[in-house]
């Protein structure tokens, strides 16, 4: 810490800069140290300020809608810009259903990938496999959307949805006309997008499980799967849960790919074939065209809700991951 040192300061004040170069240098570098500290501190404060600005702007810009509708905003299903009536229920519903669907599809896959990479794959295959799955995370969401429109949606419409309707139509989840576009398409594309996040966190927490755990279980005569289940997965479960929740956070806030395939209709339907709408996609579609202060304010309120939910979800996830990895300062030591 750059604490003030009165002695050096006095010397500078008396001597000026000419007579005693060493002492003068001490004064100069102290000043520079102080300046550097404050400059870096300012950068750190910037991070705090950004979050403060986000919170302030979201709250102040959604004030109008909050006063008009109150908490009922999230329980009304009417979204009618012409008559200035706004309710966010269809968007909340669409976001929750598409994200949960994504989790149901993605979690088993991500766990399988993580288990294979950390416990089963030969050593030479681990690096390339991990890199390849992480490439999935580097693909921009708009490209997922593009691919979904031209490949996934036709595939669903022509093959998957008729099949689901024939064999599982009785559940009521797969009724109605198979458009291809709709909740199911959104859930699948989201699942593809969140697999890398969940599996990379899972890999991290599984690596944090001490090697002795594995050896101990194996020494008792367990098969490899029994070792993974009792020795690794059970020890890492809190962290895996954290990874899953982190994936949920990503799915909730995901915008472009969902907007491109969910169908964009503000309705609540039981069937997964039906078009829906999500919180992020209604903002994406209508924000720049929103005329009228109340309309804009309602959209910002949807954004505020999305912000609060994703923050809570992320904090829970980080806490869970931390409970597993905290005792292992040296990563990869095991």
């Amino acid at each position, binding site marked *: 810490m750059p604490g003030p040192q009165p002695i050096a300061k006095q010397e500078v004040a008396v001597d000026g800069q000419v007579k005693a170069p060493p002492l003068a240098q001490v004064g100069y570098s102290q000043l520079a140290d102080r300046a*550097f500290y404050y400059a870096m501190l300012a950068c750190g404060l910037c991070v705090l300020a*950004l979050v403060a*600005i986000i919170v302030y702007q979201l709250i102040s810009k959604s004030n109008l809608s909050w006063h008009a509708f109150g908490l009922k905003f999230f329980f009304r299903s009417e979204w009618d810009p012409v008559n200035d009536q706004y309710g966010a229920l269809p968007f909340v519903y669409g976001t929750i259903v598409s994200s949960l669907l994504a989790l149901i599809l993605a979690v088993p896959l991500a766990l399988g990938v993580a288990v294979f990479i950390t416990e089963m794959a030969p050593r030479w295959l681990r690096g390339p496999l991990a890199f390849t*799955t992480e490439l999935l995370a580097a693909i*921009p969401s708009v490209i997922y959307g593009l691919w979904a429109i031209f490949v996934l949606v036709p595939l669903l419409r022509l093959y998957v949805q008729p099949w689901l309707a024939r064999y599982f139509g009785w559940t009521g989840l797969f009724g109605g006309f198979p458009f291809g576009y709709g909740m199911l398409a959104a859930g699948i594309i989201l699942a593809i997008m969140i697999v890398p996040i969940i599996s990379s966190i899972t890999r991290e927490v599984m690596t944090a499980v001490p090697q002795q755990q594995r050896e101990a279980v194996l020494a008792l005569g367990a098969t490899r799967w029994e070792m993974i289940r009792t020795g690794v997965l059970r020890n890492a479960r809190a962290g895996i849960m954290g990874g899953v929740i982190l994936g949920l956070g990503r799915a909730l806030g995901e915008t472009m790919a969902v907007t491109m395939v969910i169908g964009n209709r503000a309705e609540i339907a039981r069937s997964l074939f039906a078009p829906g709408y999500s919180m992020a996609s209604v903002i994406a579609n209508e924000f720049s065209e929103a005329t009228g202060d109340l309309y804009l304010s309602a959209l910002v309120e949807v954004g505020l809700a999305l912000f609060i939910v994703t923050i809570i979800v992320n904090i829970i996830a980080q806490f869970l991951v931390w409970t597993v990895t905290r005792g292992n300062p040296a990563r990869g030591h095991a």
Partner: protein
Amino acid sequence: MPEPAKMLSGTTLPPISLWRRGKNAVATLAAVGAVILVLLPLGAIFAYLVYKGVGSLNWAFLTQTPKPVGEAGGGMANAIAGSALILMIASLMGVPVGIGAGIYLSEYGQNRFGDLVRFTADVLNGVPSIVIGIVAYAIVVLTQKHFSALAGGVALAIMMIPTITRTTEEMLLLVPQTVREAAYGLGVSRWRTALSITLRTATSGVITGVMLAFARVAGETAPLLFTAFGNQFWNWKLNQPTAALSLQIFNYAISPFDEWHRQAWAGALILIVLIVASVSAVRLAASRGTLKGAN
């Protein structure tokens, strides 16, 4: 322990039952199946991108602006330039602040306040990009009364900062404390040590973080929708609506025209090549970097 040798020889161990071996085999198969199922869409996306994209790529695509609906030809030159402009603005604002905050956390941040900054950076990292778009709209577009490249750059800069901050901190903390002490011992001041010794040693790691942040925002679309907004023509002014590659892909993908679909694929191919190239370069740099422990 009279006869350890006999125990180790294993003759007394009962054989593993068929049921347990069966479960083991099923679990192994399931894991392999999951890997295949995950790699399948990845392969499909890349194959389709190359197949569709290469066919639509030509010189006009790289040099011309979009043609009106119904006319064939035209390209995304202005969108590529617009993306470059927006990313440059974002980097100019985001990189110094991010690195500065990272230095603060690693060199001065081992206290309560540092923890607060760390936590806030993680929170900022999790904010959905569309929400950042709303905020950039509120602070830049509303005050300027214009959609603009600047607004898009601000939105992307906000997204870059937390990633850069956290990776910079992580990389600087990998530099051994003894290196810093050696510098202090030679009478080097604290700020010179931080910049010329610590940061210098961790350069490759810090660059990795910067490139990852860059790759992450390069394909972002949602925060640009109502900040940069898009433009069918050339624009180099910071306070005017500006085209971006990702926006153009989005607009063309949801349009009903075949010609535009073709161009969307070509644009997507260019975007992905840029991103994968930067991510791979980062991997390479990190594996050959001065800090082997960095990855």
